[in-house]
């Protein structure tokens, strides 16, 4: 992938991730928050564990079975899941779909 293509794939996936987070968490809560690669699901978004599960299943529904959120999490321990940032999910989606 060229650098330009990489940047555009990154922005595209980030847009989808932003939209799915907003659907799960609700727009009213996110008004003052700009979601970027460094945004933390736990500390910044204060996502409940069950919301994170729903977000993941929407991600799989959007991209198809290649983006297997359950399998993605299966390789991580609880601390890694709790500390996860948006960029980690974006990178995973790009890797899984390319």
């Amino acid at each position, binding site marked *: 992938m060229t650098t330009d293509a990489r940047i555009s794939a990154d922005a595209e996936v980030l847009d989808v991730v932003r939209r799915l987070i907003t659907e799960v968490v609700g727009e009213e*809560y996110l008004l003052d928050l700009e979601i970027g690669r460094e945004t933390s699901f736990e500390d910044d978004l*204060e*996502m*409940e*564990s*069950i*919301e*994170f*599960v*729903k977000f993941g*299943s929407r991600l799989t529904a959007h991209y198809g079975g290649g983006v297997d959120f*359950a*399998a*993605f*999490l*299966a390789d991580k*321990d*609880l601390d890694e*899941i709790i500390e996860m940032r948006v960029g980690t999910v974006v990178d995973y989606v790009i890797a899984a779909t390319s």
Partner: protein
Amino acid sequence: MSDVVANGVQFHVQHLNPPAKSEGAAAERTAPPVVFLHGLGMDNMASFYYTVAGAVAKTGAECVLYDMRGHGSSERPRTGYTMEDSVADLTGILDALEIEGPVHLIGNSYGGTIALDFAAVSHGRAASLVLIEAHFNVDGWSEQIAAERERVAGVVAEMGEENLQAWIRRFGRKVVKMMDALTDLANHTSFYPDLTRNRPIPTEALRALTCPIRAVYGERSDVPDYERQLKDLLPHASLTVVEGVGHSVLMDATPQVREIVLEWLASSEVSRSGVRAAQSSEPDRG
């Protein structure tokens, strides 16, 4: 699929590796699905999703996780929290997913209690059970719940409802949302009254269970008398006691529990039992 209506209630369900099926035909399964049952109150399917279910799904097994009524992202109706309701919900969800044959059940705490009751009443629909810190729905269990209810009510009374609400609201959105849901469940539904009038499962029904059973408890478990209950009611169950942890063994000793569940599902005893249960449940379904 993430929402299933069963017993008139909307359930949040995660169905991993669902079987392929062609239009109008029943799905063909080569092995029983693995169903995960979480605990009561603060718990929901995420505790299994983050710990064991992903690893099981990675082996290719079909997995079903759902939030019990009143929990997680499932609907929180005002009534329907007895054990009979919980077993009917499980049955209804399996029916909605067109899972007619046997299933492996992995239950944590009250989820294990549901698994046992389901196995006892469902005539062969349980291929095997993993009971993690499960309580036993036998004489004395309702009294334990009533005592826990009293204890919580005592803490709330001491603090004062208003102070408690003010204290909760100092935390972020996540804690407030979780506590609001829990308060509604505990105070404005039939949750506690239903649980405290649970009808105990006849001990003969538990003793008659023949499916393979694996039990996992924490060294500091707060489930009273579980070793004696296992010996008395489920003598063929194999028990692992995990050192250094208590009731939250699933969260505090995740790697061990994950390993136990993976080994269990891969063992020949359990896979044979799945085949046997499938064969014996066929005539019932015509």
